[in-house]
């Protein structure tokens, strides 16, 4: 009923197409990518306002009525995710302007980023489960190429693992879609939600839901399916790592939240209990892996996994408060994680290494960088008044309300370990004096690197500012997340918006 939904998809597509026309013009590529990212962000923010004031927005592509045609749906949760996509796209593209080498740019780095953003936006907007598969593939193919682009040895070896596991997950997802269609005879998610209630073989539906859990679980890097992530995320250039860390696993979590709040809700004592248990294990293994690492980016990669556990915890609790916790945690973790990855890139730029043992003295030489690190790091650990505190607070109150003390205890313990591992980075990279064997960098020289590359600092500063703002204005953000969670929990609004009043 509104064409607003098409803009987050068509803007990156047009941007990428135009870039292919201006293949060799560096300036045009840079300008277009900034305009494109601003376009996604602007259209996403307009969409969020529209959804907030006028309810769930639906677009029937080609005006075919709902269960027959292709449906695009934007509820509050997907609009929030789209805003985050636009924001991350903008931050990472600004950072890329100063940090991507000419070689990668010449082989299509910027068009690929735009295709990736299109795939991610499509996955957030689609209301059709097979179409979700297609958007996953758009996103995956762009990410495969981005991961391998440049062809360094470690990149190729990381890409092998990433590609294999993701293809395996796609094959499982496809099989799940096939079986779902065989059982219910529709692919529209709202229609599925209605018709799945009539299926009598509840155990078959449960088995099917587990197939989806595994398929999306691989993409979301859930325990015990996360091994591809720490093996590949530290290999590509920093902006690529950052956008992967910010968005790709979150698309997996989004898909899990979507199907397990809309479609597979018959026997939540079975399905959601499994999700809750896996969430706990995901938190613990992720953070334990992180504590053991000495590579800046590998440590952060393990942290992604641990945070996925928190996101799944809200889903596993399956209450409005729990889902609201997941939504607000999603906003928080996307901001903090990408900021930390971008900072690891700056320290690498200054000292030429990601090895925490060889880094040091960053606090003494570059206090501003240290401040910018502290904000997302403390936020990730959940120190008030930053965004992470309120996100964790929401999840933990939701857990306590249900008397799920095991998961609450796990979440709190993992928080402390998160703080410990962030302090480890702080001690190694920022606090201790620079070890002798590293090439001693002149402080003025370093400052001039930073000054010349204000494009590297600017996106981190914006993200850090947003983290602080999110902490200060936690109340309105939580209200928004609560509204989004209500829409997720009470599926009738979604179903009615898609199928019309007839159902």
């Amino acid at each position: 009923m509104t064409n607003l939904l098409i803009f987050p998809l068509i803007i990156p597509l047009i941007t990428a197409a135009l870039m292919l026309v201006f293949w060799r013009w560096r300036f045009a590529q840079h300008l277009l990518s900034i305009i494109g990212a601003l376009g996604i962000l602007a259209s996403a923010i307009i969409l969020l306002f529209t959804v907030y004031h006028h309810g769930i927005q639906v677009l029937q592509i080609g005006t075919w009525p709902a269960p027959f045609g292709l449906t695009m749906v934007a509820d509050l949760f997907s609009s929030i995710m789209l805003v985050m996509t636009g924001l991350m796209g903008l931050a990472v593209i600004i950072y890329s302007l100063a940090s991507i080498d000419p070689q990668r740019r010449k082989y299509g780095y910027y068009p690929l980023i735009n295709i990736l953003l299109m795939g991610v936006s499509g996955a957030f907007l689609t209301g059709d489960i097979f179409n979700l598969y297609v958007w996953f593939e758009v996103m995956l193919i762009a990410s495969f190429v981005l991961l391998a682009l440049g062809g360094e040895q470690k990149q190729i070896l990381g890409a092998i693992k990433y590609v294999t596991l993701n293809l395996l997950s796609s094959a499982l997802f496809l099989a799940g879609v096939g079986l779902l269609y065989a059982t219910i005879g529709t692919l529209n998610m709202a229609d599925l939600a209605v018709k799945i209630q009539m299926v009598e073989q509840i155990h078959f539906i449960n088995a099917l839901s587990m197939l989806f859990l595994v398929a999306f679980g691989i993409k979301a890097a859930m325990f015990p399916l996360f091994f591809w992530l720490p093996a590949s995320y530290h290999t590509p250039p920093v902006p690529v790592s950052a956008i992967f860390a910010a968005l790709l696993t979150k698309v997996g979590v989004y898909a899990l939240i979507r199907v397990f709040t809309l479609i597979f809700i018959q026997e939540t004592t079975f399905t959601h209990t499994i999700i809750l248990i896996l969430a706990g294990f995901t938190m613990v293994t992720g953070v334990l892996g992180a504590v053991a690492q000495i590579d800046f980016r590998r440590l952060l990669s393990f942290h992604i996994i641990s945070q996925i556990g928190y996101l799944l915890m809200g889903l596993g609790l399956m209450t409005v408060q729990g889902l609201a916790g997941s939504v607000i945690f999603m906003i928080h973790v996307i901001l903090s994680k990408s900021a930390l990855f971008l900072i690891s890139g700056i320290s690498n730029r200054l000292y030429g290494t990601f090895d925490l043992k060889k880094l040091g003295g960053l606090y003494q030489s570059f206090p501003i960088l240290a401040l910018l690190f502290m904000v997302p790091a403390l936020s990730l650990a959940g120190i008030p008044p930053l965004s992470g505190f309120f996100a964790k607070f929401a999840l933990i109150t939701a857990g306590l309300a249900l008397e799920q003390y095991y998961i609450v205890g796990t979440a709190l313990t993992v928080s402390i370990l998160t703080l410990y591992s962030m302090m480890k980075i702080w001690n190694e990279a920022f606090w201790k004096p620079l070890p002798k064997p590293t090439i001693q960098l002149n402080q003025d020289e370093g400052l001039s690197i930073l000054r010349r590359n204000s494009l590297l600092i600017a996106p981190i500063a914006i993200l850090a500012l947003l983290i602080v703002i999110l902490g200060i204005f936690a109340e309105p953000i939580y209200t928004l997340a609560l509204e989004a969670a209500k829409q997720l929990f009470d599926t009738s609004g979604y179903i009615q918006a898609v199928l019309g009043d007839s159902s």
Partner: protein
Amino acid sequence: MEIILAILVGILYAAGLYMVMRRSIIKLIIGLVLLGHAANLLIFLSGGLIRAIPPIVPEGEIVPPIPVADPLPQAMILTAIVIGFGVVAFTVVLIHRTYQTIGSDDIDLVGETEQ
């Protein structure tokens, strides 16, 4: 007929998983291709195997005369095959680059050279 195809899907899955777990990278790709085929056949089966006419609505009517074949699984498979083709093409180039990098077909070396 459906039973035979169902067994075939099972065999394809088993063969695919077996190949994915071999040490050779070439066999890893073959395994992924087989898994993709298994999923496609599974979708094909999901529409049901019936002898029926194409679902075209005759002029002046609203619904086609039954029985009609379900066109949707075929449309889905077509999409999945095209996507699978592109992905496999990329993967073949990737393993070629891997071979150039580590000079071997052995997946175990991929892990060893990680650090």
